[in-house]
C-alpha cells in the first residue's frame, strides 16, 4: 500500500568517486547535509499535496538510501495515496495518472532551487570531507612518530 519513490544523486556519487579516486561510503557530515535537504524537499511535497482529512499527507516520510549510494526514498504508507489524482482529472482506475507520479518528479528536478542548493551543498561537503581524509593519514603518522631522545 502507498508508494515509494527513490531519489538518487548519481552526479554526487560520481563526484565523490572522482575526488576520492575510488568508491567510498558517505561520511557522517555528508549524510547530515543530505538529510537536511531531504527533509526540506519532503516538506515541499507535503505543501503541494492536496488535503482533505490530512491522512495521506501525514503518511509521508523519507529515509536515506542504505545501499552506499547518495540519495533518499520518499515514501507514503497511506493505503490510498497511490490513487490520489489532480482535482477534476480521470481517476487512476480509469487510466488517470496518480498525482505522486507527476508531483514528485516536478519538485525533485533541477529546476527547483532547493535541489540545486542540495547538489551544491553535497559537492561542498564532499570537498571538505576529502580534505579531512587526505590530511588524516599525515596527522596519524605525526601522532605515531616516536618522541623524546632528540
Amino acid at each position, binding site marked *: *500500500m*502507498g*508508494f*515509494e*519513490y*527513490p*531519489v*538518487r*544523486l*548519481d*552526479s*554526487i556519487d560520481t563526484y565523490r568517486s572522482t575526488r576520492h579516486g575510488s568508491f*567510498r*561510503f*558517505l*561520511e*557522517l557530515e555528508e*549524510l*547530515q547535509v543530505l*538529510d*537536511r535537504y531531504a*527533509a526540506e524537499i519532503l*516538506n515541499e511535497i*507535503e*505543501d503541494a499535496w492536496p*488535503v*482533505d*482529512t*490530512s*491522512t495521506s499527507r*501525514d*503518511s*509521508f*516520510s*523519507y*529515509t*536515506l*538510501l*542504505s545501499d*552506499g549510494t547518495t*540519495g533518499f526514498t520518499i515514501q507514503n*504508507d497511506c*493505503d*490510498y495515496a*497511490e490513487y490520489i489524482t489532480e482535482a477534476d482529472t480521470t481517476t487512476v482506475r480509469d487510466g488517470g495518472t*496518480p498525482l505522486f*507520479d507527476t508531483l*514528485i*518528479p516536478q519538485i*525533485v*528536478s*533541477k529546476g527547483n532551487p532547493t*535541489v540545486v542548493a542540495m*547538489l551544491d551543498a553535497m559537492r561542498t561537503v564532499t570537498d571538505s570531507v576529502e580534505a579531512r581524509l587526505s590530511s588524516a593519514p599525515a596527522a596519524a603518522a605525526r601522532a605515531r612518530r616516536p618522541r623524546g631522545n632528540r
Partner: protein
Amino acid sequence: MATVEAISTVDLTTNIQRRLSDCERRVFRRHKDRILLAVKTAWTGWLYIGRPAGAQQNVSFKEWYGTIESTVGDKVVLRIFNAADYSSFVHRSGSTVIEWQRIWAEVEAAFIPPLAADLRAEIIKNLSAPVNPKKLGPKGGSTTIRREAISL
C-alpha cells in the same frame, strides 16, 4: 525485528474537533523536524572497533524517520522510527542503557513541552477562522508501488 518506534501523543485540550490547519500543521512539522534532527545528532559517535577500514558506517543513522498525525486536532501524535532491525538493542560501549530510550527520554523532556505550547498558541490564534469538520473515509488495501529512482 527489533526496530525502534517512539511515540509521543500530545493532548492539546483545545477541543477544536477538526484536523490541524495548514499553518498549525507547519508548526507541528517544524518541531517534528527539530526532534528528528536532535535524535539523529545524538545517534552518532560510534567507535566501529574491529570494523575494516572503508566499511560502511552510520548504517542505522540512515534508517531514522518520523511522521506526524494531525487528523485529530485535539490529540496530535508524533512518531519517530528506526527501521534498522537491531536499532532497539544498540547501547554505548560500557553501558547497559538502551541508547534510543536514553535519547528519547531527553528529547521528549526538552522538545515536547515547547511543541505543545507553540501548537496550542497557533490553534488559539486560528480559533476564529471558519473550518469545516472533516471525517475520515473508508480504508482500502493494495500493494506498495515502487517507482524507478529519479536520477539527479
